[in-house]
C-alpha cells in the first residue's frame, strides 16, 4: 500500500473513531454510574443532528452570515437542547425503574429509542435531510496522484473531540462534581450516606453524555452534510461497541475504543473488504473480550468471594 493511501486511511479512521469515541462517552458514563445500557443514546445523537440543521437554517434565515458565530451559537443551542433530552429521558424512562430488576431499564431504553426515532420521523418526515457544505476548505499534501486530502472539518473533528475529551477528564478528575460522580459510580449507597445527591449526579451524567453526543452530532452534520432519523441506530451500536472495547466505565477507554474501532474499520475495508468490515469490528470486540474480559482500559474484575 502506498504511503498516501495508508495516510488517507489513517485520517479516515481517526475522524470516524473520534466520533465513535464522543458518542461512546455517553454509553460508558451511564453504564459506569447506573450499570445500564442506555440504548436510547444513539437516538439522542440523532436528535442533535436535527437540532443542528434546524438551528443553522434558522440562523441563516435571520441573515446571520458570520460563520464562526453561527457555528458557536449552533453548538451551544444543540448542546442545550440535547442535554435537555438526556435529562428528560432519564427522568421519564429510567428513574422510576431505579431498584427494579436489572433488565427492566434495558427494555424501557429500547422503548424510548423507538419513541425518539418515530417521534422525529412523524414530525420531520422520513426523508434524508442535510445542511449545505459550510466549510469547504481542504488541506492537500503531496503531489501528482500521490496526495492526501483532508477537509478542514475532519481536522476539526479530531481536535474538538480530543479537546472535549480532555475537558471532560479534567472535570471528572479535578472538580468537586467529578469527585461526586466517581463516588457515586463506586458505591451509590455510600455516596448517598455521605450527603451526595445521587439522583442529581445521575441526571448530570445523562446530561454530560447527551452534551457529548451533541458535539458529535454537530461535527458529523458538518462533515457528512446529511442525516436521517435512523442514523442513531447504526452509530449507536458502533459507539457502544467502542465503549465496551475500551473498557466500559472508563472515559479514556471510550476514546481509545472509538479510535481503535474507527481505525480498524478503515484499515480493514481499505486492505481487505468493505463488506465484512462490521464482521471484523465485532470479531475484534469478541477477541479482545476473550483475552481481556473487561476491555482494554477497564479495571480487571477482582472476584470478590
Amino acid at each position, binding site marked *: 500500500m*502506498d504511503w498516501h493511501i495508508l495516510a488517507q486511511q489513517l485520517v*479516515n479512521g481517526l*475522524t470516524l473513531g473520534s466520533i465513535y469515541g464522543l458518542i461512546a462517552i455517553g454509553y460508558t458514563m451511564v453504564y459506569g454510574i447506573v450499570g445500564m445500557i442506555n440504548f436510547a443514546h444513539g437516538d439522542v445523537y440523532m436528535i442533535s443532528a436535527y437540532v443542528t440543521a434546524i438551528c443553522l437554517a434558522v440562523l441563516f434565515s435571520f441573515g446571520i452570515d458570520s460563520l464562526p458565530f453561527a457555528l458557536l451559537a449552533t453548538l451551544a443551542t444543540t448542546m442545550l437542547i440535547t442535554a435537555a433530552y438526556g435529562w428528560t429521558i432519564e427522568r421519564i424512562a429510567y428513574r422510576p425503574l431505579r431498584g427494579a430488576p436489572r433488565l427492566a431499564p434495558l427494555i424501557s431504553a429500547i422503548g424510548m429509542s423507538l419513541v425518539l426515532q418515530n417521534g422525529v420521523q412523524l414530525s420531520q418526515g422520513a426523508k434524508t435531510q442535510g445542511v449545505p457544505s459550510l466549510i469547504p476548505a481542504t488541506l492537500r499534501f503531496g503531489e501528482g496522484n500521490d496526495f492526501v486530502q483532508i477537509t478542514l472539518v475532519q481536522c476539526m473533528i479530531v481536535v474538538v473531540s480530543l479537546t472535549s475529551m480532555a475537558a471532560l477528564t479534567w472535570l471528572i478528575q479535578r472538580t468537586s462534581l467529578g469527585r461526586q460522580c466517581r463516588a457515586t459510580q463506586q458505591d451509590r449507597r455510600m455516596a448517598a450516606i455521605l450527603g451526595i445527591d445521587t439522583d442529581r449526579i445521575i441526571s448530570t451524567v445523562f446530561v454530560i453524555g447527551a452534551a457529548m453526543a451533541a458535539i458529535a452530532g454537530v461535527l458529523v452534520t458538518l462533515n457528512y*452534510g*446529511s442525516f436521517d432519523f435512523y*442514523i442513531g441506530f*447504526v452509530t449507536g451500536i458502533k459507539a457502544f461497541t467502542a465503549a465496551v472495547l475500551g473498557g466500559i466505565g472508563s472515559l479514556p477507554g471510550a476514546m481509545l475504543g472509538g479510535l481503535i474501532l474507527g481505525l480498524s474499520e478503515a484499515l480493514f475495508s*481499505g486492505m481487505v473488504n*468493505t463488506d465484512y468490515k462490521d464482521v471484523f469490528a465485532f470479531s475484534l470486540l469478541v477477541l479482545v473480550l476473550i483475552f481481556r474480559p473487561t476491555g482494554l482500559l477497564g479495571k480487571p474484575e477482582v472476584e470478590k468471594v
Partner: protein
Amino acid sequence: MDHPSFPRCLLAVALAGGLSLSGLAGAADTIKIGVAGPMTGGYAAFGEQFWRGASQAAEDINAAGGINGKQIELVKGDDACEPKQATAVANRLLDQDKVAAVVGHFCSSSTIPASEVYADAGVLVITPGSTNPKVTERGLVTVFRMCGRDDQQGPLAADFIVKELKAKKIAVVHDKDTYGQGIADAMRDRLKELKADNRVVLYEGLTRGEKDFNALVTKIKASGADTVYFGGLYNEAGPLLRQLREQGLKVNFLSGDGSLDPAIVTAAGGPQFVEGAYMTSVREARNIPASQAVVKKMKDAGFDPSGFTLYAYASLQAIADSMKGAKTSDGAKLAKWLKSHTVPTVLGPKSWDGKGDLKDTSFSLFVWEPDGTYKEMRK
C-alpha cells in the same frame, strides 16, 4: 389478587382481537385499495412517496366520478421493508380490509413474499418501485410493475461507460440491497458481454444507513479507478459523491434511478458535489407533459412528487382503469385486461407484457448540472 392469571390475560387478548375483527366491515359503495410500503423504519421516505402519490391519484379519480360510480378508499399498510411484516400486511389487507387491489411494496424483498399472498388470493397488485427481476419472473398472473427492471438499466450504464466514457478502470459499489446489488450486477453482466469485465478493479458493498464511506473512497482511489458505478439509493449516493470529491477524486460517477432525485443534492451537501454525475432512469416523471398538472397540484400542496410518488400515482390509475375497463375486481380478469390494453397514465401511456413487466421502459441517461438540476442527455 394482583397477578393476573394466564386465562384472564388470554381472554383480554382474545377480546381485543375480536373487537378489531368485528370493527372493520367496509361500506358497500367504496372500492378499497391497499397501499403497502415502508411507512416506518429506515425506508420510510419511500413509503411516504407511495402514500402521497396514491392519495393524490385517489383524490383525482374520485373527483372525476370514481370507478364505475364507486369511490376509492385507500388503506395504508406498513411493512417496514421487512418480509415478515410484508406478508402480515398482505394478509391483513386482504382479510381485514377486503381490498380489491394493491399498490405496493417497495423493497423487492417485501414484494416477493407479499405478492405470493396476493396471487394466492387472486388480487391484483402493481408495484411502483420493485425493480428486481424475480418479482415478475415467478409466473404469478396478477403481479405487475410500474417501473423498469434492474436488468434493463444496468446494461445502459455499461454501454455508456465502455463506449462513451471509454473507462479504463471501473469501480463497482453497491448497497448490498436487492435493488442496488441487482443493478450493479446487471451492469457487470453487460460489461462481460462487452468483454470489458476485466476493467472492473473493485466490486464492493457499503452498508445502508451509514454516512461515512471515506475508507471505501480511499480504496477506490487506491484502485486507480477512473469511473465509479454505484448501485443504490440517493441516501448513500449523496454522501459517497461528497466524500469522493472531498478526497480530491475526479472520477466519473454513474448510478441508477434510485439516486436520481433532487434530494441527492441535500444528501450530498450542495450541488457542487453532484455536478457531472450521470444517472440512468426512465424518462423523468416530473418533466413529461402528462404529469405537469399533477406535479403542480402536489407542489402547491407542499409536497415535491419526487422518487416514486408519480409511479404510485400511475399504479393507482392503472388499477382504476382496468377496473373500469373490465368491470370487475377479480384479479385474474383485471390482469388479462391490463395485458391487452394500453393505459394512459401520468407517466404517459403504459402497457404490459405477459409477465407483468412494462413494455416500453426506455431508460435514458441524465447528467447533473452545476445548479443542482439534471437534464436528459442527447441520445
